[in-house]
């Protein structure tokens, strides 16, 4: 029996299937020791949300402190710790794992028609590593935190900071292996676990994006691991290669650090692009424009992303000639991102666009990532970077990419696949409201920071000259809106778990494999192993979905 029959059999079932991965076993052990990628994904979802909350609290504190020029709410020392912890929590414990470990973990096996990831035990191990590292980081936070900035620049972090650099550094070192294992798992899975008929060019772009990300994780993360290790050794032994007093070189640390940490930016945003590709195509019910180009631009970004780290070092004492090379390559990386942008836009053309909550997030992503990407050019262009680097322009830029890009996409993805994960539908009304709030609040928060940056307000300042205050007030005001917008989903999503109406297996009648199994899916994802006979993003008759029936049901008065 092939997938079409499976659909006909289970396709329109609108209740919660009696047996699914959530209720098949309910003991605590059945969760903590599970090897089921879906349960692991859910546990990741909870964990990263916790870290996102913590990081968010720090963000709020920062904005409050910056409401006034003087450092009156926090002393400078506390402020330094706060922005450092904000960066560490958000980057290492939310942004990097969020989409791959939650959505990727949940969806990749389903999307390629597999029973599970290729290495489920490794998957569980990576979750525990993540938990351990997170706990360690939180411990470091409890005992006094760290104040080096998330970049840990030497020699401040090795010699001069008297905060808990060791603990947090160790946490980051350990956490690295969690994401290495995840990436490793994805690559293996995508190579070996595809269902019959699921050729490379029938893969959803979400999977392509994650393939690219996994490459970066495997090739980049070990380098930052060894770098942080060297940092730790040097901090303990008081001697090392970053120590200028014996002829070491602090800038070597920056090289090694950014060799990973710039590609890490792509680790954070590439999966977002994958999600958005799904959203745009599916909610305009039209095959995505230029599938191959989007797929390969992901790979291109992953590869070129490794060649540009030096643009963080234009003013740091790096050779200006090296700066030239890095700047040039940075400009080259802009192209694949542009290609994606244009293709998404073109996908809307002659589509049948519906504006459900996930789509709102998708469109929001396009707008914000557009600005984020373009301002990246400002910073990649050396002459301008000399003026802008280490100012709020940089802060605004990477928040546009990280929050405006990655977080928005993450929220969109969560809304999009929520019915599949839980079998319940959230309140569409509140969904739309929060999407709007997030978009508005975000822009109000971070756009003023571009202006502040060009005026020269330095980043990581607890106290700033009074002429910068007006824009900072705008920013803080926006932040409060953003905060509300971010909290609302937590409320109505949790609420929907109990009271949301059953979503049915395929609420939007979409062709992706994940919509052809029950929601929530059974333990091994499919009642019968699927055989793929349709192209990616095939919305017409070729998809084998019974759209007529679906229309009839849609026309019928909804049962509430």
């Amino acid at each position, binding site marked *: 029996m092939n997938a079409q029959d499976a659909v006909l059999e289970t396709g329109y079932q609108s209740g919660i299937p009696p047996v699914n991965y959530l209720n098949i076993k309910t003991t605590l052990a059945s969760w903590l020791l599970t090897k089921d990628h879906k349960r692991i994904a859910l546990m990741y979802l909870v964990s990263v949300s916790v870290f996102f909350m913590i990081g968010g609290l720090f963000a709020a504190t920062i904005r409050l402190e910056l409401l006034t020029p003087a*450092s009156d709410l926090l002393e*400078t*020392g506390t402020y*330094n710790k706060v922005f450092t912890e904000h960066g560490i929590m958000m980057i290492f414990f939310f942004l990097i794992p969020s989409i791959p470990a939650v959505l990727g973990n949940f969806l990749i096996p389903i999307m390629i028609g597999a029973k599970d990831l290729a290495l489920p035990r490794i998957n569980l191990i990576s979750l525990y590593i993540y938990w351990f590292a997170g706990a360690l980081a939180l411990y470091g936070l409890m005992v006094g935190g760290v*104040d080096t900035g998330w970049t840990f*620049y030497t*020699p*401040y972090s090795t010699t*001069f900071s008297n905060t808990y650099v060791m603990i947090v550094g160790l946490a980051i070192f350990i956490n690295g292996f969690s994401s290495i294992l995840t990436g490793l798992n994805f690559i293996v899975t995508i190579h070996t676990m595809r269902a019959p008929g699921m050729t490379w060019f029938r893969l959803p772009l979400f999977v392509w994006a994650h393939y690219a990300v996994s490459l970066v994780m495997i090739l980049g993360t070990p380098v930052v691991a060894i770098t942080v290790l060297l940092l730790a050794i040097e901090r303990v032994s008081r001697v090392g290669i970053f120590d*200028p*007093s*014996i*002829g070491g070189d*602090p800038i070597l640390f920056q090289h090694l650090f950014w060799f990973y940490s710039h590609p890490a930016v792509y680790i954070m945003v590439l999966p977002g692009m994958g999600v958005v590709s799904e959203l745009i195509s599916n909610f*305009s*019910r039209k095959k995505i*424009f*230029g*599938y*191959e180009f989007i797929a390969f631009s992901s790979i291109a970004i992953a590869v070129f992303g490794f060649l540009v780290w030096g643009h963080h070092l234009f*003013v*740091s*004492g790096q050779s*200006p000639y090296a700066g*030239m090379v890095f700047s040039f390559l940075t400009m*080259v990386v802009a192209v694949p991102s542009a290609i994606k*942008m244009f*293709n998404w*836009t073109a996908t*809307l*053309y*002659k*589509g*049948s*666009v*519906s*504006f459900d909550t996930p789509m709102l997030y998708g469109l929001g992503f396009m*707008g914000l990532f557009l*600005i984020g990407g*373009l301002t990246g*050019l400002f910073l990649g*262009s*050396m*002459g*301008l970077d*000399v003026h802008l*680097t*280490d*100012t709020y322009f940089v802060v605004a830029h990477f928040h546009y990419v990280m929050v405006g890009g990655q977080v928005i996409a993450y929220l969109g993805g969560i809304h999009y696949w929520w019915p599949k994960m839980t079998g319940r539908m959230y309140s569409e009304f509140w969904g739309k409201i929060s999407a709007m709030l997030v978009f508005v609040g975000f822009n109000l928060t971070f756009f003023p920071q571009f202006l502040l940056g*060009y*005026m*020269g307000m*330095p980043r*990581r*300042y607890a106290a700033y000259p009074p*002429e910068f205050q*007006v*824009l900072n007030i705008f920013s803080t005001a926006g932040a409060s809106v953003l905060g509300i917008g971010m909290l609302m989903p937590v409320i109505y999503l949790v609420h929907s778990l109990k009271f949301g109406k059953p979503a049915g297996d395929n609420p939007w*009648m979409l062709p992706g494999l994940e919509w052809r199994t029950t929601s929530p899916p059974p333990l091994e994802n499919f009642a019968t192993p699927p055989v793929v006979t349709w192209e990616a993003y095939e919305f*017409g008759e070729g998809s084998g979905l019974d759209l007529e029936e679906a229309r009839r049901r849609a026309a019928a008065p909804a049962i509430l």
Partner: protein
Amino acid sequence: MQTTNWVPLFPEQASTFAWQVDALYFYLVAVSIAFSIPIVLAIFVFGMKYREREKYVSGAEIHGSMVLETTWSIIPFVVSMTIFLGGAIVFFNQMTPPDDAMTVYVVGKQWMWKMQHETGQREINELHVPLGRTVKLTMTTEDVIHDFGLPEFRTKADVVPGRYTYLWFTPTKPGKYHLFCQEYCGLNHSGMGGWVYVMEQRDYDNWLSGNVSGQTPVEMGKDLFENKLGCASCHAGGPQQRGAKLEGVFGSTVKLTGGGTVVADDNYIRNSILNPASQVVEGYQPIMPTFKGQVTEEQLNALVAYVKSLTPGAATKSPSPGATAPSPANTTGGTGASANNMTPAKADRGKQNAAGSNPNTPSNSNSR
């Protein structure tokens, strides 16, 4: 364009290449707008025009177009190349100091900037420069990485331990401009700022002459004694003097009111300036105000040196304020520095042979 607007969007253009940076900025803003407007417009138009009319109808069967893809790969590439070139040119200017530059040595330390002019004047967190003169900063730091950032001059450079980095600008407008440390450097990072004063040549010369720290300790002390602090009004000889006579006092033993004697050595003089009431010389009223907090260490040294100089033969033992001069710790190994350590290092040796080592030039001597 004035920093006095209620929302100033642009810092002043105060250096020769500031306009280039701004031009580049405007070019990029233009590019950004040129790219965003069409895309955003397209999103809105398509969104409205092709919004879902009937449920579950699939959109048109368009899978892509080679022509379009190549177009919108090539155009962004070309544009980004123009951006790269523009940036590279401006960067080249920012990194290429003219030869006729006047050098100022800068040492960063947590959390202050120490400058020294070639003529010997020292400043802290302030830099006075003449209008229109090209200034080249030779910078290093005693501890962590700092960054000498001058937004109004549109330039900035990290200051790295164990090596020199350079920065140059030619101020074009008199005024007072921000100096920020823009590389995070620890606890008081946000306090590690200051001002750059751009002055007309005339004012600058006045400032130079007004700034005593170029003088020898004795001259400086004399100046303080007679003008700045007005000690002379009491201590200068003469019938109606209220303060003790200082000529020849150094090294002698003086009687104190309420008995007891003390040898008038460095510490005694120092102490009498800071807490005069503690050891009053017999026959004088304890009326002298304390100068604690009004005189810097350096000025104190100078005063002591001057008082000594009033006693023939004692002056030779005068302490040199140079002893208190800063010198970077972490300069043992020429780090990434390579040749750029050579030039100043040589200059340094030169100075040692000639005018005694320049305190703000990192010396190559081993700090272990």
